[in-house]
């Protein structure tokens, strides 16, 4: 990007241009192969562990306040005996044209130079605008300061802030792991290698359904997968340009083939 963009208006305009992030060093991308994902939800629990996500209890869950940054959504089609149940893991799609960012009055949620949709906790004033604008229902609001019963808090990850009442949060693509890998690469005077950053969900996913990497890196696994015939993006007609790419589930019929 040439020159310095002075006003927020100018920046926004620049950042709204699809593909602007290609000019940056990284374009972090997640690929989820729905044909491999078996709905085991290990990703969900790994994310709780990595990101100090609070357990809110059944009353809060009943009010729809469960905190899962990544959830397994379930869809049912047909009637007995021809029923199909399908699962899809959904986390923040890190949209390149993120609806949530347009609404925040204090720029607590904005797009960073790595193509990530980030949330600044200590800037957030809790207007809930972003969550209302998000079409993917991935934003979670701290209605209370949720605490864990001692000594469960000893497990808290020191690399991740513990949030308090009034703050909005969501999947960060495990930005702390991205930062760590970038720092290390910088210290060693090299680029971040493909596969070096593994978000917690990706790391634990038993089926290998999730792959993470830099779409700007033409040698990366995600770059290769991005041209797979099965790719699609969630609710892509909304033109949010998500950084999460799904690979379609294959409806198999025996003796099957796919790319």
């Amino acid at each position, binding site marked *: 990007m040439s020159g310095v963009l002075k006003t927020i208006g100018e920046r926004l305009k620049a950042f709204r241009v699809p593909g602007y992030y290609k000019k940056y060093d990284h374009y972090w991308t997640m690929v989820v192969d729905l044909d491999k994902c078996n*709905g085991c939800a290990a990703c969900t629990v790994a994310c709780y562990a990595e990101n100090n996500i609070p357990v809110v209890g059944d009353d809060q869950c009943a009010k729809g306040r469960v905190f899962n940054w990544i959830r397994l959504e379930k869809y049912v089609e047909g009637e007995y005996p021809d029923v199909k*149940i399908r699962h899809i893991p959904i986390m923040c799609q890190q949209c390149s044209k993120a609806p949530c960012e347009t609404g925040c009055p204090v720029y607590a949620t904005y797009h960073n130079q790595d193509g990530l949709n980030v949330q600044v906790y200590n800037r957030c004033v809790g207007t809930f605008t972003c969550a209302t604008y998000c079409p993917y229902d991935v934003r979670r609001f701290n209605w209370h300061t949720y605490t864990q019963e001692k000594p469960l*808090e000893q497990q808290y990850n020191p690399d991740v802030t513990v949030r308090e009442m009034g703050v909005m949060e969501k999947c960060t693509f495990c930005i702390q792991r991205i930062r760590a890998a970038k720092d290390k690469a910088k210290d060693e005077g090299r680029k971040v290698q493909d596969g070096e950053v593994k978000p917690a969900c990706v790391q634990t996913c038993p089926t290998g359904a999730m792959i993470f990497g830099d779409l700007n890196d033409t040698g990366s696994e995600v770059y290769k997968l991005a041209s797979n015939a099965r790719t699609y993006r969630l609710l892509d007609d909304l033109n949010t340009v998500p950084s999460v790419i799904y690979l379609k589930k*294959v409806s198999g019929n025996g003796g099957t083939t796919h790319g």
Partner: protein
Amino acid sequence: MKRRDFLKFIGAGGLGAAAGFIFGRTGKPPGAKLMPVLIPDDNITLGLANYYSSLCTQCGAGCGIQARVMDGRVKKIEGNPGHPVSKGKLCALGQAGVQSLYNPDRIKTPLKRRGERGTGDYVEISWDEALKAVTANLAEIEKQKKADKLFLLTSPQRGSLGGLMRGFMAGIGSANIHEYELSRYLNLQYANKVSMGLDGLPYYDIANTRYLLSFGADFSSTWASPVNMSYGYGQMRQGAHRGKLVQVEPRMSLTGANADEWVPARPGSEAILALAIAHAIVEKGWYKGADAGAWRSLLGRYSPKDVQEMTDVSTERIYSIAKEISSNKPSMVIGGDGLASYDNGISGHVAVNILNHLIGANGAIGGVLPNDHDSGKVDFKRGIAPFNQAALSGNASALIVHNANPAFTTPVAAKTGEALRKIPFIVSLTSFMDETSVYADIILPIHTGLEDWGDDTPSPGVGFPVRTIMQPVVTPVYDTKSAGDIFLSVAASLGGKTASSLKAGSFAQYVKDSWQGAYAKDRAMASSALTFEEFWNNLLKKGGWWTDQEPKKRSINVSAQAVSAYLPQGQAKFDGKDTDYPLYLVLYQQHGMRDGRGANLPWLQELADPTTTVVWGSWVDINPKTAASRGIKEGDLVTVESPYGKVTLPAYLYPAIRPDTVGMPIGQGHSAYGRFARSRGANPIEILPFKEDARSGAYALNSTRVRLSSNGKGNMVKIEGSTKELGRGIIRTVSSKG
């Protein structure tokens, strides 16, 4: 140290100052109450993470893990990337292992019973007093010549701790070791023994199969070795040879949801269905073996036409499965809980072995491969029924319980509570106050897996020899001891034969010594010049011992003659007349909870069940049609009644269950087990008959019919909103070529 993200894979050799108390002494190190960072140990650098290789003890699969430890606390558990079982991955339950360690409901000091048995009324005592009480009781039993009536009830042990326990019991002079947990896959192991001569659970090479027919094996969720099998499943679902999955079960499990085809056969008819498929393969000449004639006559009575009524699966479908499985090789059949949980469970698994024989899957790549390691032999005669019988008839002089909870996982009809009450002295070695421990006189709080030493030989294995090491990754959180050290110290105080048969100074030493054999073998194999200490330190870094081989194919034969005595006679039996109890009841383990062990972990309570999205509770699955005909709406409280009792739960209208069947998950309904588990949902096991197969020691979970009555509005918390995509194209599919 350079950067905070610098990964160190260090073993105990590098533990430095910490080694003193991690190794030998149990109990708290001096100064443990101080902030550990005031005088950091050599291995603690503030803000730096260390990674220790160890073993997941959340279930019996035996996944290798790496614990991320910072400032003396476990922050995260990951799969050990080099480990052949976990391959760097973990399941939801494994991820939550750290919540077992830091659980607020762990037992923090030894306890002595004050109130009535079963009430959980205890007073805290010192370790000294507790161990003296245990020793005194055992010494008294020895004096009265009742030592042969001492019982040990433990979770299955495949490593050093098992050896130590056997040594202890032999020293005392008792043969009564009952290894128990709900899912020991006893019918499967028994069937493999009688039809193929195999011990332990084999490796299912899902990764390389192209057609997988599963009879109720929910391997994506709870069955056998979920991480390893899910890994294989991911491999199977890729590339030019994407494998097909067909799942047979009356209630669609998570694995069923992933399947390309779901076959809701009538409950209890799965064994017959398997043999009808076998019949079709032989009949159509798709099996070319020399023994085809023997199979033709043996399978004569299972023709698809004759069984379609009983199985509720059409003749066409049976032939089409038979054809696909014969023409898409390598193909494989797996029999899971859905097959084993009937009173004819052995027959079901024998039928699967026959099928695998006919499609050439036994011993084949992409099929069923035996392990080259010894994960221990099962004593099929030591189920829970003979134990309860001995206790009820006054033939148990004392009981040592270790991490086993039959009071929760056996039906009321089994009379486990009554049996426990009859035993004069019970000591429980446990980390949590579970439903069995509330009967104990003395409770000895033990380390969790992340604080203890141990080792394991996985079963199911991976097709080549593996042995995993477990090492303490942090100092104990509470005043707990290693179960192994407790056995050693009680043996030493008892003296006599018990003491002389167990000489190790500590369990850590005992574990280490038990690796001398592996060391000798390794030296011979690798012709390496490592000293034992070097070998041991490498072991701790790596997380165990394995040889990085690919599984090899074998030749395994199933002969028609050997299996003829085990063929199913008909549909499995269900108690209760169909006029009074019109519906079949099928139970399954709740995702994350497994047999109930996960219920005290808040992450898992709040984890939506993948099939129903229910959190913090349990439910009864009813087909919407069945519910409508009874005026039951979603969330209504429904009483499910069998001839043996009733439980009440909210209804979940599940379209993927047979209309003549209701399902309930196992895992909730705890009366003890801590604040997160207690008084949530119901335990459906309570209302089962107790039918333990005397041959295998397995008892049938799906063995009764039930009736329903509606009971007003319930309180079921589920996460899902609409389950319809409404044309939004959320989960898109593409049809396969070919």
